[in-house]
């Protein structure tokens, strides 16, 4: 009996001391956490996509609570519903979320352009891009191994006919694909707009024409017809300024090569 007690008592005493020290320490040195933080965190979708510009949902929640000036409308996947909840919790005025959709600025599918080489390497866009700038004739175009498809949290991207296509209904506008594409072909466009330049080839018109049937040749016709002056040809490729674009569609009707198209 004595032997057991001699073993149990020291351990219990040491355990008690540790417990007391820990309890006092956690009471004395507690770091106050804002009570709104868990609530705010709960509202956010938890996709950790980074579209808000912070490191994941936790980062955004922290910024919202700690900094009064952080806007509540940065969560693109959560859209208006989340913005409403956030504004309620933080007592701020509701701000509308500008929903965005990813657009692949390339129409070089199997019909419009062709492969330059037979590629037998690792089947990712970033690996293929390292060798001669990709397997296709157009070094600016979509490589088609679907790096974007693999990062998409919503399965909104499909590889169809050799190029990536974004399904507008499924896209939540998180922008992960934008960061992933080695050719920087994907950009986020306001969901209200209907037209986009579907080419990123920065070569001169004649060169572009040789590698792809639907490439933008930089003819500046769209620049001239656009009633809102929203289009500028920069580096031989048209760029639409969506702040000015009025969705009139004049550019698509007048485009000589179908380089500007409707966002599907």
């Amino acid at each position, binding site marked *: 009996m004595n032997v057991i007690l*001699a*073993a149990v008592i*020291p*351990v219990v005493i*040491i*355990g008690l001391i*540790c*417990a007391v*020290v*820990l309890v006092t*320490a*956690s009471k004395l*040195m*507690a*770091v106050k956490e804002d009570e709104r933080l868990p609530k705010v965190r709960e509202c956010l979708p938890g996709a950790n996509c980074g579209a808000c510009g912070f490191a994941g949902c936790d980062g955004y929640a922290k910024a919202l609570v700690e900094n009064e000036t952080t806007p509540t409308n940065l969560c693109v996947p959560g859209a208006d519903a989340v913005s409403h909840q956030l504004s309620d919790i933080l007592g701020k005025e509701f701000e509308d979320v500008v929903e965005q959709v990813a657009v692949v600025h390339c129409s070089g599918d199997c019909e419009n352009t062709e492969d330059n080489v037979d590629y037998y390497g*690792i089947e990712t866009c970033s690996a293929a891009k390292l060798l001669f700038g990709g397997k296709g004739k157009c070094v600016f175009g979509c490589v088609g191994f679907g790096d974007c498809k693999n990062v998409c949290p919503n399965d909104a991207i499909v590889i169809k006919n050799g190029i990536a296509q974004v399904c507008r209904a499924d896209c939540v506008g998180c922008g992960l694909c934008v960061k992933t594409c080695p050719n920087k072909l994907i950009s986020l466009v306001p969901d209200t707009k209907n037209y986009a330049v579907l080419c990123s080839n920065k070569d001169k018109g004649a060169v572009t024409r040789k590698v792809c049937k639907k490439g933008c040749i930089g003819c500046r016709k769209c620049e001239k017809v656009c009633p809102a002056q929203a289009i500028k040809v920069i580096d031989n490729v048209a760029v639409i300024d969506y702040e000015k674009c009025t969705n009139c569609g004049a550019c698509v009707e007048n485009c000589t090569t179908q380089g500007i198209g409707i966002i599907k």
Partner: protein
Amino acid sequence: MIKLIIILLSAVFINNYILSRFLGICPFLGVSKKLDSATGMSLAVIFVMMIATAVTWPIQMFLLNPNNLGYLQTIVFILVIAALVQLVEIVLKRYVPALHKSLGVYLPLITTNCAILGVTILNIDEGYTFAESMVNSLGSGLGFMLAMIMFSGVRSKLEGADIPKSFKGLPITLVAASITSLSFMGFGGVIENMFA
């Protein structure tokens, strides 16, 4: 002084905790994917090994041994180390938030790790003095860091390699780990003869 240097060097190279003693394999395989998390984990391990030794050595010498309670060593050490790391985490969170941010996530992971317990128990078994124990803990932690950083390099190479499907993931990692530990066998006998 020379004895301390020998203890330090042999803890880093010959008796490397991961690659020779095979303790602490869990964090070795779990956190070695990226260099920065491997470094963070290793720093936390060095830190915890040192403070754990600083606390458990006196407990063994002044509490357990005089009372003939040596057989309670394992349970008392686990208890004390776990409580201690929790305490350190609370203190760090309050007073050194920057350090807590970089080490914080790893501290709870290693509270009950076998490498930590192994260091403290082996210090007693080897009959080290307090200073020797501390040096041995430092060396063990540094050895852990060396193995982690080396292996995170190996793993980043593995990531880009074209590995047969059946070897992908953990199998090839274990194969790589065993080859890395084989390379450390080459250190056997080097340190003792260095000062002979």
